[in-house]
């Protein structure tokens, strides 16, 4: 079932549809947040918060853009805001997950999640190299890091990135070039 149908069902009060959307995008949202805000504990809270924000604001989503673009924007903004605050944002602790849709959501994970298999390159990269690259990405200024992650991790095109970050396409282009240039300097050892 495509996103538009799920969103429509959710708008009509179908929490199961929301569960499907969560299941479908949980890995991507979590991955995005992790790249933007590498603290694992915060990342999960932020990723959860992104879905909750989407739930709250679903009435504002008018379907003129892709749902996942809209969702990514929420997540990116949350992560960037969190980072700007120095990680001071505290979310409430969970008080038990209850049994709400639990089994169902888990069962649907494999069927619906848009999981991307790791590329051969990814399989080849050593853990040390990966850590070095991750650190280099984490050291980027947030505006450069966000563009880089959305492009090279999420493989969004420039217009989608511009939409998510609410900046002109030209800005995306220049920031991305700048981000890669900085990475090139910082990863000189790996690049030979």
């Amino acid at each position: 079932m495509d996103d538009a149908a799920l969103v429509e069902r959710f708008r009509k009060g179908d929490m199961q549809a929301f569960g499907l959307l969560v299941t479908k995008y949980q890995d991507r949202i979590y991955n995005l947040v992790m790249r933007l805000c590498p603290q694992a504990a915060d990342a999960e809270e932020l990723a959860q918060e992104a879905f909750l924000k989407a739930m709250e604001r679903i009435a504002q989503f008018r379907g003129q853009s892709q749902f996942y673009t809209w969702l990514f924007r929420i997540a990116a903004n949350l992560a960037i805001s969190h980072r700007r605050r120095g990680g001071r944002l505290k979310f409430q602790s969970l008080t038990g997950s209850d049994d709400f849709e639990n089994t169902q959501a888990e069962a649907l994970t494999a069927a619906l999640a848009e999981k991307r298999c790791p590329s051969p390159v990814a399989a080849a990269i050593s853990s040390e190299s990966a850590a070095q690259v991750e650190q280099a990405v984490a050291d980027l200024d947030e505006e450069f890091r966000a563009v880089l992650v959305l492009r090279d991790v999420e493989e969004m095109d420039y217009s989608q990135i511009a939409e998510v970050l609410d900046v002109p396409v030209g800005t995306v282009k220049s920031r991305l070039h700048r981000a890669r240039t900085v990475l090139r300097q910082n990863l000189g050892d790996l690049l030979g």
Partner: protein
Amino acid sequence: MSDRDDILEQLSAWLDGELSDEQARRVEQAVRDDPHLQGELEALRSVRRLVRALPGRKAPEGFAARVLARAERAHLLGQPSAMVSRSFRWISLATAAVVLLSAGVVLYMILYMVKPPPVHEMAARPATNKPEPPPPAVSLDSTVRDHDNATRSDSPKPSRAKAGEKAIASPAGRPAAKPAAPPVVAAARSPKPVGDVVAEPPAPGGPEQMKESEELAKAGTRDESGRTSPEVRRGAGGAGAAKPLGTGGRSPAAPVPGPSAPATAPRTTAPLPALAMKNKKLDAEWSDRRVSEKGGARETRLGRVLLHTADLSDGRRSVEAVLARNGLTVVSDKYHTGNDSAGANVYYAIQDPKQVEIVAHLTPQQVSQVRGELDALQVAWARPGGRPAEQTLAVAGAASPADDQALARASRSLATTRMAKMMIAQGQTAPAEVDRPGPPAAEASSVEGMARGRVAGLTTRPAQKGLAPKAGFPAKDASSGGLMPGIEPAAQTAQVQADRKQQIDVLERQNGGATQPAQPESSHMAQADQMRQVQQAAQIPAPYTTRPAVQLPGETLQVQPAGSALQSLVITVRLYEEGPRGLAELKAATTAPAALDARGKAEAAQEAVPDAAEKK
């Protein structure tokens, strides 16, 4: 910028295929002619490859379930509804407006058709002819909340809160509560300590968040304040006093209401739509006539009450006090089905570090009362500075019949509200999806009789007879007469009587003078008739269009005689312990619309909303 610099900046975009054909041709030409550009391009390609090779992070195990649990919780707490279409929202708003309008009319009738005379006139009149004092504000709040609970579930909070406040503060254009008769609600928000029970009102104008930790700290010390137990406070009036598990037989007394709150205390008389919606949703989940049959017993789950507390032990004791007042006795810390439920006068408490689940088997006569008190409990907790609702319910205790009457009169407005709710519900046709006939005339009259009984004797409910716990379960300590073990009975009784005296004094002050005799039953029935007429005239939708949140007696289910396979009614109370943020959310549900707006704007300023992308 030179051509070369320009080309350099285009290299990333060329790699990504984001250039126009013309730009791409220009870049390709430049790269072919310039070895330096070729090196740059290769370096950028390598960087991109490395970043793309980073392993993807998968969401932790159970992530989706946790999101859904939080979504449920957020939804129940009344955060902006994600599941209501705009059209339905408008319908809800319109319905809410109609209901509020009619509620205002009803309140006007309740308040001013039995308008109290001045205090000096009250003192001069014979007791039997004294008119009713105006009901405490809590009853008005409850009335509006009950209407909310019944008919409104999705209206935006600010408009509802405003409407609710308007209905409360100035029904039919009359002035709001006078300073001489401060509302009980204010006292509920700022309970005065008795002994060393502490719960101070929030500082005037002080930031709520700053007060929160203090309140929590106080809540945490409340356990040590040495309260009297519900057994004591129930006294001779009730068999089946509770003996809370895991508390060494100690159970809490309801905080005694203090004098009225200072005038500067924040007014949070708005109804709690979030809480109403919460319990309505839980009812929808649970009151679907699910019947489980285990061990020969049948039970029908009526509803689930979700309570949040800053202190699990304290919250549990408050709930147990409510159950004890209604003649329910704890029999086990494990859930049972089977013959033991034949008592229908039992409850079970299952506790883990973060929550308590209390399963109460109720008779039809108990359901409405218990449910109402639990709702009131949550409402009181949720208010800034609020603590258990025993203050407003003003029930309990071993005392003289006269004292009980005085307390009953003080609580009459609450009972009147419940009676009105019952009467309204009685006037509805049976929900379409529930295949059952409407209550026959005999049952309807029993409903009215029950309502009258509540009005006249709210605090002196007789014990459930013939419903003893099953042998083998820890029954209440009959030898102690409901008193706490290890404490001198005489001392406990004296404490209870002192507490009750203070309660009565406070309530009298809040009622603007000496306590008044009970309103004649005919007057209550007339009010109920008027309310029904108003409701019918306004064509207000059924309070529960699908299934009732409160199971009215005689409506569908019959409790079979003890000893046979029983069909009992179940309410599950699930208590969650909240951290500071959870408590803040609950309090936010009662915050004035202006504060909500301010908070929303602050959040909006911090986090860019995705509107802009949509507008593009």
